[in-house]
């Protein structure tokens, strides 16, 4: 009797041990649809993009509910290129924790939401296209203190938000330059910002792009605050697509390239129609007057024309969202074309 009992345990045990057999690893989200993001987008009639929850200048709906921002325009450019209409784009607001999962599971087709290109993320199921904004970590302090560089804020209290690389950069800067900065650390964004504006801290540290955005939208008088870099490291914010669809990866890369090439060639929203008559072979190739380049990507020949006509070149997109024509007024800095001393390199369009 005891023996039979043991036999039963043996069988049950064996069954239990078999059940967790690991499934084959497959990161290319919707199975069997590899290479078909373009087809899906064309079938739906819209591109689905990840957006931030509130990041003025990068992605934020205006008072009429129309999404605006640098990252939003990246998505609109893809919609213009693929579907011929920049408004055939839908935006899904995502938190920092949801964003990569949403892309990997196919909930969105493109993630242009201020995501830093890091090795761990790149190796874990997403492909990064080209950085569309080079950010850096900055301090914001009251202008009355006269501080213009980290060395000027020795002994200051600094509001820091936990849960990002900012914390580590803060500790490194304070330790390397022996600044004896006093951190005041919070778990959420609004508490951190509020503590800074209430006077609990002398400085606020985070991505410079958010600092500009906070200064423009949340301070009583933006001129009362100055922003400067915490260190000399650039932080490339890069639109990402999921692994396993090379055609879609190429499309998104070249949509961005079309925008910086257009700026390089001097093609703008206003003059793009005239430029169609240009003799310049580079312009003729970009605008599809000389055919073949759209077809290579699986798009219509006028794809780049539509991007520039509807969304504009990179310089126009930058200026209107975060640059001189916006409330944020962020200097082009590293985001200039390589020709002008920045890091935006137009690749050969041929």
């Amino acid at each position, binding site marked *: 009797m005891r023996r039979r009992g043991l036999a039963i345990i043996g069988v049950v045990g064996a069954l239990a041990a078999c059940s967790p057999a690991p499934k084959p690893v497959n990161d290319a989200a919707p199975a069997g649809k590899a290479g078909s993001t373009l087809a899906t987008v064309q079938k739906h009639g819209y591109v689905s993009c990840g957006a931030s929850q509130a990041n003025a200048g990068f992605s934020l709906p205006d008072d009429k509910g129309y999404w605006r921002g640098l990252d939003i325009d990246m998505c609109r450019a893809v919609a213009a290129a693929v579907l011929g209409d920049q408004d055939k784009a839908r935006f899904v607001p995502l938190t920092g924790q949801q964003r990569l999962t949403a892309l990997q599971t196919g909930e969105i087709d493109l993630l242009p939401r201020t995501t830093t290109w890091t090795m761990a993320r790149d190796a874990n199921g997403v492909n990064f296209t080209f950085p569309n904004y080079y950010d850096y970590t900055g301090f914001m302090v009251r202008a009355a203190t006269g501080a213009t560089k980290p060395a000027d804020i020795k002994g200051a209290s600094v509001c820091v938000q936990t849960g990002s690389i900012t914390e*580590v950069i803060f500790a490194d800067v304070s330790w390397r330059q022996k600044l004896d900065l006093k951190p005041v650390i919070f778990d959420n964004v609004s508490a951190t910002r509020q503590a800074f504006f209430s006077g609990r801290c002398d400085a606020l540290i985070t991505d410079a792009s958010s600092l500009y955005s906070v200064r423009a939208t949340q301070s009583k008088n933006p001129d009362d605050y100055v922003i400067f870099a915490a260190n000399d490291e650039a932080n490339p914010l890069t639109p990402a697509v999921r692994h396993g669809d090379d055609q879609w990866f190429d499309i998104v890369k070249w949509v961005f390239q079309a925008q910086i090439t257009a700026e390089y060639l001097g093609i703008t929203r206003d003059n793009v129609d005239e430029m169609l008559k240009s003799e310049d072979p580079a312009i003729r190739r970009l605008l599809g007057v000389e055919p073949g380049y759209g077809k290579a990507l699986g798009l219509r020949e006028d794809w780049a024309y539509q991007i520039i006509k509807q969304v504009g070149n990179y310089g126009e997109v930058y200026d209107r969202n975060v640059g001189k024509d916006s409330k944020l007024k962020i200097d082009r800095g590293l985001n200039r074309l390589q020709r002008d001393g920045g890091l935006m390199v137009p690749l050969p369009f041929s």
Partner: protein
Amino acid sequence: MVWWRDQKFRAIALQLLAASAFIGLILWLTGNTAANLAKRGLTVGFDFLGRAARFPISESILSYSPTDHFWWAYTVGLGNTLFITVIVALTATVLGLMLAILRREDNPLAQGAGTTYVEFFRNTPLVVQLLFWYALVTVGLPSIDAPLNPLPGVYLTERGLYLPAISLNGLDMPVRAKFNFEGGLNLSPEFVAMYLGLSLYAAAFIGEIIRGGLEAVSKGQTEAALALGLAPKQALNLVLIPQALRIIIPPMTSQYINILKNSTLALVVGYPDISFVTATTINQTGQALEGIFILMLVFFTISIVTSVAMNIYNSRVALKVR
């Protein structure tokens, strides 16, 4: 009798079946977890504890620098947790005792004040109370440029309370530097909000436990004590309280453990307790399972130790029935 009709066999077989199903479930969960972790490229293990933590901790009673290791960061967080728990437990016990005595007074004003306090603090969520105290301390107090200076060397500002510290070289006075006061002793708003919030909240519960204990001692005991010629104070201290303690101690143990567990709400006001350190560690290393495991182990250990200590004390004061 056929073997499967045998009751003893059935009992054992069912037990074994249930046990194997449970073990199977555990194995399945472990296997799945391992497979998912491998799929996401995450490694499991406690190796990260020996790496440099690199993140800052805003204040601590043990000394800490971002170049220290993760295990030390945990220890520093634990130090803060224990520190806040112990001083809150002491404060809340004293306050609670006062509250219990207040509610037993014949004076309706004293009774009413005690009742209002208990009802107010017991019936609002602790998180809300903590946020309230934090807002009061940071928004209600003057800025660092115009501090309240009630006594020489004592400054009260939205950045906390600055006091002279006693050191080997005599008094160490806080001195205003460009951005902050340097030197002296600083109680941060985060610490003050935590200390006030937790103490006042726990006092309401402890007060009720003590009052309950005192009420439970039969009225005849007080009357007998008074009849024997003891003063009312002596009756309270020598007769009432020793008997009430027997009833009070078990629920007090739960309250002390509650204070410990509630200290994890430090996250909302930015006081760096062990759960704050754990959250940051998980974020920096991605080792969520290990981080939570350590946190659970630490809380489990402290709770068990508290519980055992209180039980030993309880068995010493308990009524000896021979």
